[in-house]
C-alpha cells in the first residue's frame, strides 16, 4: 500500500517536472507580477489620499537631512553629543542627593545597628562596608545618568532614528567586508553588548555574523558610559574654563564612542581580509516611517526594561565584588594586603603603558560588571596611596559627593590627564564583561572565537594606551 502511494507521489512530481519544462522559467516572475498587479488593483480601489499633496513633506525632509552624505554624520555626532551633555549635566545633582542619603545617612545608621547587635568586626566589614557600600555606590552613580540616558535613547529608537544611523553606517561596513546589518547590532551594543551579540542573529551568513559578534564589544555599553562620563568630567572638563567644561567632557565621550566605531570597522576589515575571508552579502534595509514617540510609555518601558534591569544587574554583581574588594584589602600576606601586593607587582608594566596597577586590579575585579570600575579604582587608590581623612577605612568603598572630591583623590594617587585619557581608552578597549563572554560562547558554541573576542580587545587596549603614552611623553 505504501509502495503504491509512494509511486503515485512520484508520478505527481514527474508530471510537475514535465509541465515545468513546458512552462519555462518565467512562472516565478509571472506569479510575482500578478501578485503585485492584484495588490496595486486592490489598494487603488480602497485607498484614498487627501487630494492636495502637501507642498512640504516633513518626513522626506528629515530623511534627506539625517541620511545625507554631507549632513548625516555631523548630525549624528551632534545628536549623540546633546544626549551626553544632557546626561552629564542632568545627573550631577540627583547623584549627589542619592549618595548623601545612602552613604552619609544610611551607612552610619546601619553601622550603629550592627554595632549594637554585636557581630564580629569582619562580618560587619564584609557586609556593611563591602557589600552594602558597593550597592549604594552603584545606585547613586548609575541610576541618575541611566534614568536620563535610557529614556532619551529609547525615544530616539522609538522615533525611528536608529535605522537611519544604520543606513549611514551601512556602506562603511560593506566596504570593510562586513554585513550592513552590523550597523544595527552595533547600535544595540551601545545599550548592552550581550544584547548586541544576541541581535547578531539577524545576520544570516555565519562569517559576517561572527565578525559582528567579535566587534560588538567596541560599542561602549551602558556599564561603561558612567566611567567615561565621570573621567571626562574630571580630566577633560578640568582642562577648560568651567563654562565649557560640560560641553568639552561631552565632546570627549562622543570622541571615544566614535573611536569605538572606528575600531569596529578596522577590526572587521582585518578579520574579513584574514581569518574570515569573504564578500559582503547584500540586504535591503527599509527606513521605517518616523513615528511620534509615546513619551509616557517610553519613559515607563525604558525605566523598567533598561534602567532597572541594568541597575539590578549592577547591584547583583557589585555586592560580591564589594566583598572581594574588602577581602583583598584586608587579607594580609607577608605584611602587605593582597591588593597592595598585586598593585606593586603590576605597577611597572601598567605605568609603562600609561595606566597604573590600581586600574589593572580594578579591571580584574570588575570582570563581572564594568559598572563598578570607578568605585573599585577609588577604593584601591586610597588604599595604595594611604590617604588619610578620606574614605571610611581599609577596603571600604565610599562615595565622594562631587567630581572635585574624586579628582583630588585621584590626583593624590598620582593620576595625570594622561592616566585619565588612557583609562577612557582602556575602558573602551578591554575584555567584555563575563555576561557578554558567556553570551558569545552560547551564540557561537565555539571556545576559540570566544577567546578571540575576549582577548583581542585587551591586546588592542594595551597597544593603544602604549602608543598614546609614548606620543604624550614626546610632545607633552
Amino acid at each position, binding site marked *: 500500500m505504501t509502495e503504491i502511494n509512494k509511486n503515485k507521489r512520484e508520478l505527481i512530481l514527474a*508530471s510537475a517536472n514535465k509541465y515545468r519544462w513546458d512552462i519555462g522559467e518565467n512562472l516565478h516572475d509571472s506569479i510575482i507580477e500578478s501578485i503585485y498587479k492584484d495588490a496595486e488593483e*486592490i*489598494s487603488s480601489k480602497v485607498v484614498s489620499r487627501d487630494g492636495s499633496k502637501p507642498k512640504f513633506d516633513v518626513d522626506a525632509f528629515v530623511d534627506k537631512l539625517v541620511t545625507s552624505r554631507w549632513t548625516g554624520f555631523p548630525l549624528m555626532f551632534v545628536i549623540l553629543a546633546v544626549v551626553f551633555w544632557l546626561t552629564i549635566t542632568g545627573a550631577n545633582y540627583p547623584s549627589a542627593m542619592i549618595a548623601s542619603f545612602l552613604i552619609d545617612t544610611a551607612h552610619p545608621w546601619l553601622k550603629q545597628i550592627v554595632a549594637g547587635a554585636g557581630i564580629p568586626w569582619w562580618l560587619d566589614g564584609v557586609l556593611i562596608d563591602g557589600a552594602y557600600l558597593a550597592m549604594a555606590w552603584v545606585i547613586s552613580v548609575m541610576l541618575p545618568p541611566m534614568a536620563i540616558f535610557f529614556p532619551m535613547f529609547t525615544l530616539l529608537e522609538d522615533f525611528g532614528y536608529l535605522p537611519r544611523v544604520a543606513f549611514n553606517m551601512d556602506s562603511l561596513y560593506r566596504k570593510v567586508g562586513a554585513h550592513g546589518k552590523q550597523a544595527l547590532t552595533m547600535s544595540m551594543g551601545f545599550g548592552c553588548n550581550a544584547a548586541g551579540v544576541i541581535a547578531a542573529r539577524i545576520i*544570516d551568513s555565519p562569517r559576517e555574523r561572527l565578525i559582528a559578534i567579535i566587534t560588538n564589544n567596541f560599542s561602549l555599553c551602558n556599564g561603561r558610559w558612567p566611567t567615561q562620563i565621570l573621567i571626562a568630567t574630571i580630566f577633560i572638563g578640568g582642562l577648560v574654563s568651567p563654562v565649557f567644561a560640560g560641553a568639552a567632557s561631552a565632546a570627549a565621550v562622543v570622541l571615544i564612542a566614535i573611536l569605538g566605531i572606528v575600531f569596529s570597522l578596522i577590526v572587521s576589515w582585518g578579520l574579513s581580509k584574514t581569518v574570515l575571508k569573504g564578500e559582503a552579502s547584500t540586504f535591503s534595509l527599509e527606513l521605517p516611517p518616523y513615528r511620534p514617540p509615546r513619551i509616557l510609555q517610553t519613559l515607563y518601558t525604558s525605566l523598567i526594561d533598561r534602567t532597572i534591569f541594568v541597575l539590578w544587574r549592577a547591584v547583583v554583581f557589585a555586592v560580591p565584588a564589594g566583598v572581594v574588594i574588602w577581602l583583598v584589602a584586608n587579607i594580609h600576606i607577608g605584611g602587605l594586603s593582597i591588593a597592595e601586593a598585586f598593585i606593586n607587582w603590576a605597577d611597572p608594566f601598567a605605568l609603562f603603558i600609561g595606566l597604573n596597577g590600581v586600574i589593572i586590579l580594578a579591571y580584574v575585579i570588575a570582570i563581572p560588571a564594568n559598572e563598578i570600575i570607578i568605585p573599585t579604582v577609588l577604593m584601591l587608590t586610597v588604599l595604595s596611596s594611604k590617604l588619610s581623612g578620606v574614605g571610611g577605612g581599609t577596603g571600604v568603598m565610599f562615595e565622594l559627593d562631587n567630581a572635585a572630591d574624586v579628582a583630588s583623590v585621584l590626583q593624590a594617587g598620582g593620576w595625570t590627564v594622561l592616566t585619565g585619557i588612557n583609562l577612557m581608552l582602556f575602558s573602551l578597549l578591554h575584555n567584555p564583561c563575563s555576561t557578554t563572554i558567556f553570551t558569545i560562547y552560547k551564540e557561537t558554541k565555539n571556545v576559540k572565537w570566544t577567546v578571540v573576542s575576549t582577548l583581542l580587545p585587551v591586546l588592542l587596549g594595551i597597544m593603544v594606551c602604549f602608543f598614546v603614552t609614548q606620543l604624550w611623553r614626546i610632545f607633552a
Partner: protein
Amino acid sequence: MTTENLNCANCPVHNAANLIKLGVDMTNYDYVIALAGNPNTGKSTVFNSLTGLKQHTGNWPGKTVARAEGGYSFSDKRYKIVDLPGTYSLLSTSTDEEIARDFILFGQPDVTVVVVDATRLERNLNLVLQVLEITDRAVLCLNLIDEAARHKITIDERLLSKNLGIPVVPTAARQNVGIQELLKSIQEVASGSFICKPHRISGEIKNVSHAVEELNKKIMEEFPGLPNTRWIALRLLEGDQKIIDAVRSGEIGSLINREFQTVES
C-alpha cells in the same frame, strides 16, 4: 502594564467577552493564532497587547529574531499566539521567510493574522495575497491607522474586506485602539462563524491554468481533503524543493489530519 485604562474596553456593555492576558501560559489552548506581517508594522506591539507580554518593541526592522509565543483567553476560549518574524514575502528563500511560511503551512494555525501598515497598504498587500494563497483562514489587522490619518490617508476597510474575502480590522495597537474588534474577528474566524472566501491571484492562470488544474486534480486524488492543493500545485511547478520533498515523503498529507480530527471531535 497590567491595568489598561481604556474607556470603552473596560465597559461591560461594550465588552461582554473579556480579554485575559495569559503571558507565557499556553496550556490547554483551543486555537493557534499565527501573527504574520511585514517588518516594522507593529506586529510585536499587537502581540504584546494580546498577551500582556513585554517583548521589546523598537522602531526598526528585524528585531524579532526568534519566534515568540504567548497566550490569551477571550470569551472562554484559550488561544496560543505565535509571533512570526517580519517578512516582505513568502516566496524567496531567506531563513525568516522560511520560518514564517513553514509555520503557516505546516503549523496549521487556526487563524493567521496579517498585520499591515495602513500607510503602506499596497506593498503590504503583496504579503497578504501570498498568505491567502496558503491559508483560507485569515484576519487582516490594518494597523497604524492613526499614522494613516496623520498622512491624510483613508482606507475603505469594508471594500478591502470584500476584495480580500477576510475580516479587516483597523487598529492602532500602540494606543490599544481596535484590539477588542480584532479579538472578536479572530474568534469568529477560528470558530468558523465567519467563513473566509480568500482572494486568489488571477493573473498567472492564463498561461499555466491547464498545468495547474491537471496537477491540482492529481494532488487532490492522492491527498483528499488537503486544503490548499492549488497553491501546492503552483509551488511544484515553480520547483520549490521544500514542497517537492514534502510531497515525496507524504509529509504534506499530515496537513489533512487535523481537518479530520475537528470533524470527529
